[in-house]
């Protein structure tokens, strides 16, 4: 449609019938996993840390829906407890990098010129560094645990945000209304926080959703390598690692369940983020 014809779509009338099924399904899955992460320990059928060596490495049964691990702990309960840790890790990473990345992006877009160019150069360098290695390095230097990989990955994820948000911010800053605000004497700070940020946040949110999946995998990977969360803490990556020895003895339940949790969660978040991005594109 020509630009002139588009003028007629400004009235609100009627409901759009086309529903994005993928959005709904993926959103539901993400919500479900999030609920488990928050309430997991309450809902779990067994205490996640309760060992029962006599009943180790059992297959699925009525008492243990997904079996037990090498120390007799109920797998599904541990998976639910692990959800909390994995979510917390990915959550901190995403929130931290979103905050830093968005701030950097808007700063670069608003100032333009050499500020923008140099920030871009720094971001490009950061892009080149593989995230896992930085996380491993951080753990090696500062000791394994929860925080070292989280902080390292937060820093590593900043350029992913900054790049996407920056291009959106640049476009926003070129809009006539921004110039109008400048002309009206509104301060740069207020324009950036009240106007640019608000209009850029849908894209940042969609990006955050996609990044959540990656952050989860990266965090789990670090724990898998033994450099993240330590046993007896329940965490999906850790459980996958833990279950390796049992696979050969014919009891793959632990690795399988933990691995499946990771895959399902990551796919759900990726699809959700993707659908959100499309909706933003469609709305413009």
């Amino acid at each position, binding site marked *: *449609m*020509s630009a*002139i*014809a588009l003028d*007629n779509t400004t009235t609100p*009338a*009627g*409901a*759009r019938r*086309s529903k994005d099924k993928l959005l709904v399904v993926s959103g539901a899955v993400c919500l479900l996993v999030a609920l488990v992460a928050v309430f997991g320990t309450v809902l779990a059928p067994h205490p996640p840390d309760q060992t029962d060596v006599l009943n180790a490495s059992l297959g699925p049964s009525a008492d243990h829906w997904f079996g037990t691990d090498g120390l007799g702990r109920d797998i599904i309960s541990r998976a639910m407890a692990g959800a909390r840790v994995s979510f917390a890790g990915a959550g901190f990473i995403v929130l931290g990098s979103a905050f830093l990345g968005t701030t950097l992006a808007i700063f670069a877009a608003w100032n333009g010129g050499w500020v923008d160019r140099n920030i871009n150069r720094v971001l490009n360098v950061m892009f080149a560094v593989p995230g896992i290695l930085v996380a491993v390095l951080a753990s090696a230097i500062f000791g394994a645990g929860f925080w070292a990989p989280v902080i390292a990955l937060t820093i590593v994820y900043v350029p992913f945000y900054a790049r996407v948000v920056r291009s959106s911010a640049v476009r926003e800053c070129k809009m006539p209304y921004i110039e109008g605000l400048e002309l009206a004497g509104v301060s740069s700070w207020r324009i950036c926080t009240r106007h640019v940020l608000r209009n850029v946040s849908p894209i940042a949110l969609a990006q955050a959703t996609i990044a959540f999946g990656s952050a989860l995998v990266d965090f789990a990977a670090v724990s898998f390598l033994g450099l993240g969360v330590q046993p007896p803490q329940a965490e999906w990556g850790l459980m996958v690692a833990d279950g390796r020895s049992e696979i050969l003895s014919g009891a793959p339940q632990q690795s399988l369940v933990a691995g499946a949790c990771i895959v399902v969660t990551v796919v759900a978040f990726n699809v959700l983020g993707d659908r959100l991005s499309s909706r933003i594109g469609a709305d413009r």
Partner: protein
Amino acid sequence: MTVPNPNAATGLDGDQPLLEIRRLGIELTDYLPPRVLVQDVSLTVRAGESVGLVGESGSGKSMTIKAAMRLLPDNANVSGDINFDGRSVDKLSRSELAAYRSGDVAMIHQDPRSHTNPMRTVGEFLIEGVVATRQMKKSDANDKAVALLAEMGIGDAGRRMKQYPHQLSGGLLQRVMIAASLMNEPRLIFADEPTTALDVTVQSEVMAILMEQIQDRDLGMLFVTHDLDLAAAVTDTLVVMYAGTVVERGRAEDVYIHPRHPYTAALLASRPSTTQVRRLVSIPGRPATAYEVGDGCAFAARCPFATEQCRSTRPPLRPVDDSQVACHRSEELAAVLKEAASA
């Protein structure tokens, strides 16, 4: 290669309109209820005839010509008939549709830049259509393209053929678009606001060139615009659309000087004059779309002459003198409307 028409009665081809649109309706199906954009639109274009489709936002004029080329999105549901040379455009198979779009008709869009590939030269753009559909050999196509560019008044056509679109100004590029539309010898040209984005001096020249070509080749043209003055100057027949329906249809000079529908008269009266200062005549409210107007006349909400009958019953398009008008009160308002338009 044009679509062969086994149904065309020999000897009566001269009377058969090139394009016939009958009771066209377009609605968007991804809304509940479906949003009507065009309702009950009928018009014809004969060979050698220029028909102007005039309207503001929401009038449905762009949608109408897109429907005629079957360029509407999937969520648009089309009802009614669109016939080219007696054959239904809606029922064409894929290959027939391709032949129709590449041989029988051509479209000139409003914005040449978004319809040209910035990575290909002007020459490549001009010949790709005819060469891809195997209508001409590459060398012949090149010669023809150069000749057409020269006819467009583009000096140094050979050099221009090797340039890229970004190297040409808007007016020049639009002339290239016109040349492109003529490459495959169409019989009907759809022009969707071809000069709206151009400067007024450039518009004058581009329109002069287009009219020359239409007349020399005896082509039909369906010309969409919001500019009544422009349409009146370059077309034989004017079709005025409002809120997805046709409100008036008649000979261009007739409609222009003696409008018989209150909307046409109001549109004519609201143009700012270059010769006289006066309080501008405006129509209260804003142009509506088909799905916003209820039963009754589409223009009733904004019409200063509306009566209860206007608000409750939709006036059909009926003959009034030599034009067709969709207004209950056209005859009694004739004098008032004529005066309003000429003020």
